[in-house]
């Protein structure tokens, strides 16, 4: 009897091993040595010899244009929107802050501009494709491990991002041939560092994700699934999947990234019907990411009306409130967002703050679910009479701490207005929390929401109170 079972058991093990191998392979970074394709790297034109079409696709992407179609922004009005032509409540706008050295009183470089995180060599992206623009694409910043670059000023006074190995052709040749699909480390260099410090901006994109354990992120754990960012976000033709909740432009307007969209998780996702009843109305992240900023603190409040001077760095900044181990706030979201756009009157929320990025949807909206958010607050200048928000030319401010000239400069640059009068206004921005999924044992339990000290603000969510206590009629959908 035992002997009869043995082949079956071995077969099961063999199939399991096969699946395991297949799954592991799927998560590995696609590496391709380019040693056979070129000898000397001579800038982007070396890549274009074989990848002209890829470069053309990339030219039109969000990562290069920093704007794109914005069908998810309810007040976009068919305009292309993005980082380049809107503003935010962190460093406000690339306008006037694109590229250049800012030095402190000690002569040290304290900023090189927003283009430090643009996948280009320094030129502003244009809407019209040209040879110059294609050669401005910096392929290596996302595709070559070990590639590092710095800002240099040429004899004409123009600024350019170049490999730090530009004087060492042998070293540059070596690095430029280490080509792969983007790794977590490559993505995190910009997506974690943005906003002025590690994890300052997003809150759920921490450097720790480069090499996390399973308790920090079940998907990206190095000893577990080891999923790279592109496993979920990799689209076609250099178009990235997913826009979170507060990005203006979408790279893939006809596709939505959800936990079950890549056939990773079934829908409904649980065996327990009570949990499945919840997942019909609640996004997975609500229960499975109970906290964010678990390794490094994140910026929760940035007050530009109160300059702060760091003697250590000899640099000015806004007054920033950092927080670690933050419990998200929760709100309904139907996939659409209302944005505060330049040159439009301030969109005042019921609490009197200006809504920079506000998720749309209510309890009665059948397309809406409850999502987890980082609620970022700020204080920004508001143009008198017009009620338009004004960005700040932060690059000037970082060095001298003078906020008024930095606001006047931005008002001139964006609105062509001089000597403007302004007041300071509080702003609110909702930023979706999607990374740092913890093991199911750490997920929220019933009483975390429905207990007497539950984390949900039921009234704000459209309930009279805790539904478990009140037993309301079922939601219509």
């Amino acid at each position, binding site marked *: 009897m035992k002997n009869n079972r043995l082949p079956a058991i071995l077969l099961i093990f063999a199939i399991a091993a096969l699946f395991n191998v297949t799954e592991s392979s799927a998560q590995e970074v696609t590496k391709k040595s380019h040693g056979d394709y070129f000898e000397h790297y001579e800038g982007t034109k070396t890549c274009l010899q074989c990848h002209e079409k890829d470069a053309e696709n990339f030219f039109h992407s969000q990562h290069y244009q920093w704007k794109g179609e914005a069908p998810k922004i309810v007040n976009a009005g068919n305009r292309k929107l993005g980082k380049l032509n809107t503003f935010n409540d962190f460093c406000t706008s690339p306008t006037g802050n694109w590229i250049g050295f800012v030095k402190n009183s000690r002569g040290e470089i304290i900023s090189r501009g927003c283009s430090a995180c643009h996948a280009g060599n320094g030129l502003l992206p244009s809407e019209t494709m040209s040879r110059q623009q294609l050669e401005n694409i910096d392929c290596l910043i996302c595709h070559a491990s070990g590639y*590092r670059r710095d800002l240099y000023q040429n004899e004409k006074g123009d600024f350019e991002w170049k490999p*730090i190995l530009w004087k060492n052709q*042998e070293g540059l040749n070596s690095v430029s041939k280490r080509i792969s699909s983007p790794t977590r480390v490559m993505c995190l260099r910009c997506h974690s560092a943005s906003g002025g410090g590690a994890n300052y901006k997003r809150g759920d994109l921490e450097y720790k994700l480069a090499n996390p354990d399973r308790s920090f992120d079940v998907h990206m754990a190095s000893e577990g699934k080891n999923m790279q960012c592109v496993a979920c976000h990799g689209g076609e033709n250099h178009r990235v999947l997913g826009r979170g909740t507060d990005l203006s432009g979408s790279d893939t307007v006809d596709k939505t990234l959800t936990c079950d969209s890549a056939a990773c998780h079934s829908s409904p996702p649980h065996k327990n019907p009570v949990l499945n009843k919840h997942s019909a109305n609640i996004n997975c992240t609500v229960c499975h990411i109970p906290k964010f900023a678990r390794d490094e603190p994140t910026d929760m409040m940035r007050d530009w009306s109160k300059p702060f001077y760091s003697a250590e760095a000899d640099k000015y900044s806004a007054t920033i409130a950092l927080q670690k181990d933050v419990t998200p706030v929760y709100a309904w979201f139907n996939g659409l967002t209302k944005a505060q756009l330049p040159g439009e009157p301030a969109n005042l929320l019921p609490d009197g703050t200006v809504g920079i990025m506000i998720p749309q949807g209510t309890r009665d909206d059948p397309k809406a679910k409850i999502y987890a958010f980082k609620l970022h607050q700020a204080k920004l200048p508001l143009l008198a009479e017009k009620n338009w928000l004004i960005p700040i030319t932060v690059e000037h401010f970082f060095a001298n701490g003078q906020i008024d000239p930095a606001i006047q400069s931005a008002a001139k640059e964006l609105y062509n207005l001089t000597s403007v009068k302004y007041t300071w206004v509080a702003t609110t921005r909702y930023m979706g929390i999607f990374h740092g999924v913890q093991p199911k044992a750490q997920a929220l339990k019933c009483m975390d929401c429905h207990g007497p000290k539950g984390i949900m603000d039921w009234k704000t969510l459209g309930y009279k109170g805790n539904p478990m206590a009140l037993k309301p009629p079922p939601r219509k959908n």
Partner: protein
Amino acid sequence: MKIAKLIISIIWIFLGSILITTQGVSAGGDKENGKDLYKQNCRLCHEKDSPNGEFTPMSLTQDQWKAFFKNKFEAKHKDVILEREKKKLLEFLTTKQIEIIQKYCVDHAADSEQPQTCSE
């Protein structure tokens, strides 16, 4: 008897803390030394516009630094005099110090996670 045990426990804790502290200083010291040793002994002759060539840790890749220390370092520096010490560089630096400088260069090479000039 209890007092004797207590005294022995205190002695063990004391010795343990010394060991931990010493290891901490040693590890941290090596880390600091790499940068300091580079500044004191290498930068002098390899600053910007130097006739000997400008070199900082991020001038080369990690593989290039390893190959340099393995194949070229001694030959290139055999006649170098450290003016400060009035000695030949290779007679002044110990093998351990050269290893520490090499580690600093490799750890902060152009293709490392933290490229550095030694002025940072």
